[in-house]
């Protein structure tokens, strides 16, 4: 049941005023892969200069006192009341706040002020349910994604090298919202055919060099729409050779020949190897081939391990800063290489990783940020949110090895007691449904209220929502160490709905499941894998 409570907005003493902030757009905290798109996809270039800002009252300056110790006191904004059914966790600023003001705290304060009206049921134009949560506005988001696959105007030229992502984001998002995506099969096939290079892999468009990101996006899109014609258009033999050329002697993969090497490369490459059932053997033509380095996977998990930082999170490449998007890539990569219960603790410091990952969730926003001291952003609903099922699987189930049997068997009941999750599903769902939905006719999902929706955010916010609404199980078969060798562990996941007595969203707002490793419809990767494994070696 739904009833609008927006009329009650006047009860709040929220003092925020929208104003233009000339030239001071908050730097986007989204993964950079998306940021050019952020700009490209904002329909109106003027928007960049019209992000709402919030005037924040002067901080009580002067003595450090103990003001900052007491929740809300001395904080720029006091929420007087909020709808009874919304926990105050989501309607009040954090209870500890340092008085020292810096660029970071300024942006963080502004973001809280930006989100609070949405979270506390006070945003005009949104209809909240009894729990203070708006419905998922499918009737606007679905056309938004369909539209993103139609002809695009000239300013999208900046997306010319990442157009295949548009296919993947739209198809994934549409599927999550219940659409039949096979309607796009024929057009997808004729669209991607000229993008494949005879030397293996796909580029960003016709005549562009092959690159792992578009190759990943296209391969998964083809797997999603399914069918022999779609799957068989991929030249697996050429792909295998090309992957060999991308493989580096340190274990990593370059994104394109001569391109950068990072954790995305590791993840994209193993997704391709796994789904397409490619031989692991490294072509001797590969520049990285040596007697000690004979497979596409040689040294790969060891290289991924080097990306864990002192903070516990994962960086894009060794020496860099922990970042949510790379954390997902690293974990998903490992979960393709082996049984999560064995391989994750083998290569990563799990307690530090969990600590770091958990600290990415903020209140009152409820959503995830990508890095320490950065802002919440809807896309991390997937990049950070999507790490949880993989880590939870790592902590659950029977022991993966002798040495740690004791510790792992003990953890199971603890997780069970927590509603079987390590993060706040409620927080994430509130952030997504309250703050990430574009409430205008435009539709689509977004980073945060001050940002325009785009198909990247629409896809990954929905993926995060799906993950928060479902529980994934890793169905262990036999010895976890063996599972790793057969590389079948990525196909042993099943899901169930998370049903709670105090569910904050209505059942109609539950979206479909996406595979926790491949992030495409549950079952699609399995079918593609079966299709290719029935083929003779090339």
């Amino acid at each position, binding site marked *: 049941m739904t009833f609008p409570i927006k009329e009650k907005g006047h009860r709040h003493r929220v003092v925020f005023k929208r104003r233009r902030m000339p030239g001071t757009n908050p730097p986007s905290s989204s993964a950079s892969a998306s940021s050019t798109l952020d700009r490209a996809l904002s329909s109106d270039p003027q928007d960049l200069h019209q992000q709402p800002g919030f005037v924040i009252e002067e901080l009580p300056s002067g003595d450090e006192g103990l003001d900052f110790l007491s929740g809300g006191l001395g904080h720029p904004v006091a929420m007087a009341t909020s709808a009874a059914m919304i926990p105050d966790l989501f309607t009040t600023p954090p209870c500890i706040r340092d008085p020292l003001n810096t660029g970071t705290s300024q942006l963080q304060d502004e973001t809280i002020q930006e989100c609070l009206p949405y979270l506390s049921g006070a945003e005009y134009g949104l209809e909240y349910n009894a729990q203070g949560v708006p419905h998922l506005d499918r009737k606007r988001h679905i056309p938004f994604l369909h539209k993103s696959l139609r002809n695009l105007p000239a300013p999208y030229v900046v997306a010319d090298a990442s157009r295949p992502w548009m296919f993947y984001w739209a198809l994934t998002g549409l599927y999550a919202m219940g659409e039949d995506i096979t309607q796009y099969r024929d057009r997808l096939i004729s*669209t991607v055919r000229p993008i494949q290079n005879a030397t293996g892999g796909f580029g960003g468009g016709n005549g562009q060099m092959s690159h792992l990101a578009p190759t990943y996006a296209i391969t998964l899109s083809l797997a999603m729409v399914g069918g022999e014609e779609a799957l068989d258009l991929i030249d697996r033999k050429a792909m295998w050779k090309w992957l060999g050329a991308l493989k580096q002697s340190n274990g990593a993969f370059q*994104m394109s020949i001569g391109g950068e090497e990072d954790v995305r490369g590791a993840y994209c490459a193993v997704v391709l190897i796994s789904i397409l059932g490619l031989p692991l053997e490294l072509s001797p033509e590969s520049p990285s081939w040596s007697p000690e380095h004979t497979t596409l996977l040689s040294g790969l998990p060891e290289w991924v391990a080097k990306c864990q930082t002192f903070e516990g999170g994962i960086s894009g490449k060794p020496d860099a800063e922990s970042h949510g998007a790379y954390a997902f890539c690293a974990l998903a990569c490992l979960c393709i290489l082996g049984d999560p219960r064995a391989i994750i603790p083998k290569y990563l410091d799990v307690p530090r990783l969990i600590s770091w990952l958990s600290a990415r969730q903020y209140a009152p926003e409820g959503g995830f940020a990508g890095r320490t001291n950065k802002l919440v952003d809807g896309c991390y609903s997937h990049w950070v949110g999507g790490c949880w099922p993989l880590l939870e699987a790592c902590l659950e189930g029977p022991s993966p090895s002798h040495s740690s049997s004791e510790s792992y068997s003990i953890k199971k009941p603890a997780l069970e007691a927590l509603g079987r999750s390590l993060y706040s599903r409620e927080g994430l769902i509130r952030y997504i449904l309250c703050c990430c939905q574009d409430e205008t006719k435009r539709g689509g999902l977004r980073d945060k209220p001050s940002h325009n929706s785009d198909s990247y955010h629409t896809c990954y916010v929905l993926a995060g929502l799906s993950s928060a609404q479902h529980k994934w199980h890793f169905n262990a078969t036999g010895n976890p160490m063996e599972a790793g060798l057969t590389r079948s562990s990525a196909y042993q996941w099943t899901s169930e709905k998370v049903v709670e007595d105090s569910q904050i969203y209505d059942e109609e707002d539950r979206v479909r499941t996406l595979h926790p490793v491949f992030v495409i419809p549950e079952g699609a990767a399995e079918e593609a894998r079966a299709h290719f494994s029935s083929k003779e070696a090339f």
Partner: protein
Amino acid sequence: MAPKAPKAPKAQPKAPDPPEEYPTISAKLQAEYLASRPYQVLKDTKGLSNLSASEKAAYANYRFLETGVWKTWGAAQQKEFLKTVETQKIPTPLPLPRDLGRDNKGREIASYTPEGFAQFRKKERQLSGLRRESARFRERREKARRKQKGRGIEDSEGEIEDERNRRKFIGVLQGKKMGIYEGDPRWDDVVPIPQDDGEGALAAIAYSDEYAEAMGYLRAVMAAKEHSPRVLDLTEHIISMNAAHYTVWLYRASTLFALEYPIDKELSWVNEVALENQKNYQIWHHRQLLIDTLYPTISSDPTAIHALETSERDFMTQMFDQDAKNYHVWSYRQYLVRKLNLFNTTELQSIEVLLRSDVRNNSAWSHRFFVVFSDPAYCTPGSAATAHDPRIPADIADREIGFAKAATFEAPQNQSPWNYIRGVLRKAGRELASLEAFAEEFVKLPSESGEGEDVRSSHALDFLADVWAEKDETAKADTALRLLGDKYDRIRRNYWEWRRGLLDAGVEGKMKGLSVEDVS
């Protein structure tokens, strides 16, 4: 009257043309058409039976003219006929005006005014003249090229410039600007490859003509594996329209190296592009490729290295002025530190500047950790970031702990220095408990009666929970974790509860032991 008759009516239809009187060229042509057939008009208006004999005779002769029958007659007969036509002043009938078609803007040419049409015709004549000249130019160049197998066609700059202007003029005359490359004689030898978009392509982008043309030429030079100075111009042009185009960047890099183009020149160009494209990935990888190429040439020259170090640092400072957490700039910086061996105090100081302006800049903290704990002077090569490195000197660890502590006092709820402290302790192989007293500066647990609780940092509380777990002071650890879940960091309640569960089982320490061992 009869013989003179034809003259009189003839003069009438072909009255002096006042051009203004015709609103359009088609009206004018139609009028001229009729004016060349006075006897047809006469017959149509009066009817054949009402014509005088001489008019009838003139009409008959006109018909002979119109049909061309007279050409089948004998020579003598023809001669006589033409003479009659002349004396009767029968004009030669003009052909029916043909459809003039449309101009390049889609307008019916028939709707032009007569003088507009005259101008149009004049332009067309000019155009075809220019096109002929241009075609001759191309042919000549093509021949020369074939003779010289592609390289070095020796045309004078003047000639090329003339041709360039000619094409510009053609563009103006045809009312449709010629593409940049189409209009540039230097590109005549390249046949652009249009984009194959497949049928009914999804998310097809409506490229500007400029972008579409440039990409057509890029596909062509890439197919021909051409690495020449003009490729640098072409890639620069495309990058100015779409800086996120990895193919263009990679192809530009390979061209630079093939041409042994001066790296410093390229670096300063890249600086401009980077400042305009803050979030761009490709630029930083490109820069890395440049440094990789430059470095071997200066590696034995400390002055050159130092100059590079300084200019790179200055440039990054400029970038950080706009966004001090730009992930790509920081990643590049980590690369540069390793490449140029910048594990030095200047590097640390430049990070401190950033931290002084924003102590919450986690990217700066993260970089500091890398610089301090990867320094080959005293670190174990390849030691994992989360692993104990026994070679870390105690004074370095002390210094870093001191640095982070000071920052913590500035803003106790800032997570960055807390993470940093944990990192340092792990690296140095020290117990968390060694900083128990420090963390307790920010935390007072409530007494049994529930009084005196004072928590100024949830991170301190988290830290202490681990300290107390380490020391087997389980009850205190449990209180800390409960406070976190219930009060100070409620959004992470499940996590804190899970930690409590580990505490009960006493496995936390073991788990840590396990992972550290396995990683190192």
